[in-house]
């Protein structure tokens, strides 16, 4: 089991994206490894160690908060419309001469703040794909939802995060006050 510790930085990144503060994330990592250790006899190496740890981490997170029902009952969203939302943000950024807005922000802290504002169903999918590096099908398998739902929730998460980041940049005076953004 010690060899699974090489994935600890990945599991930690994933836990940070799920939990809302550093202490909760570290507790989540510890509980993930503890459960993995206890179920090591049932682990199949061909399933992929990293994905196995992420799945445990996600289950620990959701069960601890008894949020499974809320997760399943998330509103459906239109993936194509969410992609179009990102393009609309880009068009406005070009028009306002701040297309490099992400480079002007202190991106890490701003992203953590924006992620905390996402509804959980969207944050979890974002965490699996964009932080955990899973493909859509892997995330769908881990969450027990269709690939199309992963796709639409991911695109919603990305669009909302970008809106929040632009909103923060506007509040900080980094981009003009007429920039789009804010709570969708």
């Amino acid at each position: 089991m010690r060899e699974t510790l090489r994935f600890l930085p990945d599991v930690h990144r994933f836990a940070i994206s799920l939990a809302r503060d550093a202490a909760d994330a570290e507790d989540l990592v510890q509980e993930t490894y503890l459960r993995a250790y206890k179920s090591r006899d049932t682990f199949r190496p061909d399933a992929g160690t990293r994905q196995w740890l992420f799945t445990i981490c996600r289950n620990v997170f959701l069960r601890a908060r008894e949020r499974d029902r809320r997760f399943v009952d998330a509103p459906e969203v239109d993936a194509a419309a969410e992609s179009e939302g990102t393009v609309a943000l880009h068009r406005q950024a070009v028009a306002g001469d701040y297309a490099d807005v992400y480079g002007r922000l202190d991106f890490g802290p701003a992203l953590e703040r924006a992620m905390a504002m996402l509804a959980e169903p969207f944050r979890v999918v974002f965490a699996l794909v964009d932080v955990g590096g899973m493909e859509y099908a892997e995330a769908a398998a881990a969450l027990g939802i269709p690939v199309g739902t992963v796709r639409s929730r991911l695109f919603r998460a990305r669009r909302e995060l970008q809106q929040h980041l632009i909103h923060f940049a506007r509040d900080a005076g980094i981009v003009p006050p007429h920039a789009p953004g804010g709570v969708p």
Partner: protein
Amino acid sequence: MSAPQVNCDDVVRELWDWLDGEMDADRLEAIRGHLEICSGCNGHVAFARDFLERVRGTLRADEATLQPLRERVLAAMRGA
């Protein structure tokens, strides 16, 4: 068989699928072909890619955080 036609509306709708490589090879190639000749769509892709790359390069803890956490996890496993 000729490559499927792609226009700007297609690229806008499939922006994230293309960046994630979540489409079949013919479609990936068709969109790549459109991007070679369309500066507007290239700008949309660059904006979205910049966001994704910054996301993927952040949220990394330093060793000062990870080493105590490794020790804590090992201690918990030993005590299990």
